């Protein structure tokens, strides 16, 4: 594949005050790919997502999105460029209704024009969100909230969708359902980065994968070619 890069991360370091969380992490993501980032708790996966989404910024190195350097963009600016993050733990706005949660997803100028069209798209993808439109979002089940979190992110018309631990705390049948929708989203041309602890499932859906260990990239490759042993070793640092 020689298609265009949508995201190019070059040797970034990220610190939480004194703690060195990411060590010279580099990674490249092509337009239209599904890339999976695997790693144990504390391996730096979420930190990497936060750096891309603009929640924290790297001390050095560079992050390029569609050829432009976005190191210093703040989260709300990154959204307007087309990067949406579905955060770990879903992070609903509990006092807002399901529909209002979706509307907030379209807050940035880039997506204000097509709100009704995008809501319809999200409703087609997750019909349940239309039925439950007037309910407060905290009355939804975990799986439904995850659907809402994805739908809300899609409302901003992202070209890059970052998903942090989608399957956390959900029943296998629900996870399967959500992963199926990810395919549909990807087929519409949205590039997806999946952060997961569930190695098998995420390798199955991804085109390529990175394995992270202690803030570094330990392994990368075409998902279908990565052997189970190889991934296990990189995952646990054996």
């Amino acid at each position, binding site marked *: 594949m020689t298609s265009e890069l949508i995201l190019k991360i070059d040797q970034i370091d990220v610190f939480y005050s004194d703690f060195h969380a990411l060590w010279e992490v580099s990674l490249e993501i092509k337009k239209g790919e599904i890339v999976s980032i695997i790693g144990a708790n504390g391996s730096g996966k979420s930190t990497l997502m936060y750096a891309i989404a603009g929640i924290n910024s790297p001390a050095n190195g560079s992050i390029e999105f569609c050829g432009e350097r976005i190191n210093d963009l*703040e*989260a*709300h600016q990154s*959204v307007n460029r087309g990067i949406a993050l579905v*955060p770990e733990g879903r*992070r*609903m*706005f509990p006092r807002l209704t399901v529909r209002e949660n979706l*509307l907030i997803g379209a807050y940035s100028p880039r997506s204000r024009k097509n709100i009704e069209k995008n809501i319809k798209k999200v409703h087609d993808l997750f019909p349940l969100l239309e039925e439950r439109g007037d309910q407060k979002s905290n009355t939804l089940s975990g799986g439904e909230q995850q659907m809402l979190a994805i739908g809300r992110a899609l409302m901003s018309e992202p070209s890059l969708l970052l998903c942090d631990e989608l399957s956390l705390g959900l029943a296998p049948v629900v996870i399967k359902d959500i992963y199926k929708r990810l395919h549909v989203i990807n087929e519409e041309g949205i590039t997806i980065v999946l952060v997961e602890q569930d190695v098998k499932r995420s390798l199955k859906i991804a085109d390529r994968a990175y394995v992270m260990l202690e803030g570094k990239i330990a392994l990368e490759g075409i998902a279908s070619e990565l052997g189970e042993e190889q991934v296990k070793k990189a995952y646990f640092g054996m």
Partner: protein
Amino acid sequence: MESLIQPVINGILLGGLYAIIALGLTTMFGIVKLVNLAHGDLMVLSSYLSLVVITQLGINPFWSMLMVIPIMFVIGFMLQKYLLNRVLGKEMEPPLLVAFGVSIIIQNLLLLVFSPDAQSLMTSISVKTIQLGNINLPILYLVNFFIGCSVVLFLRLFYNKTFLGRAIRAASDDEGAAQLMGVDTKNIFAIAMGIAMITAAIAGILIGMTFSFFPHTGAQYLIISFGVIIIGGLGSMKGALAGGIILAEAQLLGAHFTGPGYQLLIGYLVLLIVLAIRPQGLFGQAH
């Protein structure tokens, strides 16, 4: 029995004024989790601003709102954006201290510029009443009540129906997640303070027409605000209205039965009872 009707009605009307006095404090607490100790002083600052406008232009206090409201919005916006936002974070104390500092500065500034003399905003309706049988309805109190209710209603509509209002609610639910939706939360907090100051401007002018004020009156209204939002529930609009009416009723009925000397005491006894029975307030959410 008949003698009770007058204080009950007065209490309801005064409650509307109490509601708008507390509205800015409850707004800031609900959205930014900021206890704005300068709220009372900012209200009194509005009273003085109105006084200046009235004496310079020779207009009615109501018309002075047209100038005082935008000025106070800008003051609130700047105060939050350039001062309070810098100290907002995980801890409660720094913003509290900064707000307290702002309070002291405003009080002393007012003292310096306007002297400690009592002032009031005179209008033609200050002393007029409507007579209904045995009951007197002071027109000014009716106006206060009507404006208080309208502002509560208007703000509710604004929060529920507009993009900006929803963004404000989202930012107050989960600041980090709101940023991920493209909401510039720091800016939203500044706008919230601006809105709080709009209510403070209106409250300040109504207070100025109803009672006399001097540079140190702010503390008194801050305490009323706290009473109202503790009874009504922190961060709740409905709560501000209900809390305002309950506190005012307690004070006026207390005065009716035990004499004006006990008016404030009875008000705060009711507050203590509410705290004991329902610590989160009538419309507050338990944490």
